């Protein structure tokens, strides 16, 4: 009898934890709230710039995709959400930065890192990745290369 009761209790706890949540499309202000929430930039730019500069000798940082102000239509076809060019980048700091940034943004971030030499070589030869990124909608949040 006792055993049965314990088992029943355990089952109940597991079931509660399985509750899944989603937005209610019938919410009175669903569209208004959506516009307001998505209008805000996914991460604070000033804070982001400061953290990126702390990663190493950063020469260029470009944001695109998820970081551009949008109306909710996601730009999935972007080649990179965040692109950093720099030397002596601390891998440990970079990893921590990306984990925190993904938590803030709420989505996986497409990220690319290049050192300065590789970037300048690729830029000079009209590399497809660089061209697509810099010719599409983007923002250079750090630019010490005079691009």
């Amino acid at each position, binding site marked *: 009898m006792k055993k049965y009761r314990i088992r029943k209790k355990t089952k109940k706890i597991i079931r509660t*934890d*399985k*509750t*899944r*949540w*989603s*937005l*209610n*499309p*019938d*919410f*009175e202000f669903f569209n208004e*709230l*959506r516009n*307001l*929430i*998505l*209008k*805000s*930039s*996914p*991460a*604070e730019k000033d804070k982001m710039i400061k953290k990126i500069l702390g990663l190493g000798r950063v020469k260029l940082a470009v944001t695109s995709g998820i970081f551009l102000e949008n109306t*909710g239509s*996601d730009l999935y076809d972007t080649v990179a959400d965040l692109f950093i060019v720099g030397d002596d980048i601390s891998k440990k700091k970079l990893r921590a930065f990306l*984990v*925190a940034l993904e*938590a*803030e*943004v*709420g*989505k996986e971030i497409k990220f690319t890192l290049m050192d300065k030499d590789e970037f300048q070589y690729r830029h000079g030869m009209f590399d497809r990745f660089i061209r697509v990124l810099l010719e599409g909608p983007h923002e250079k949040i750090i630019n010490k290369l005079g691009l």
Partner: protein
Amino acid sequence: MSSNTLDKLFGSRVRVKLLKFLFRNYPGNFSVQELSKRIQEPVDDIKKELSLLDKLETIKKIRN
């Protein structure tokens, strides 16, 4: 607009983070544990905000 403005307007950073996450991943549905992992906030704080948003009918439970 900085997200800080919304935090202050709504009076809760976790609430704004939750709404941001849910709108960005709409119509996805998530458990408390998944939300905690994805937005890096404690389970208890998330439960508190979910219960408030549930009362307002901003969010709803999805039963499998």
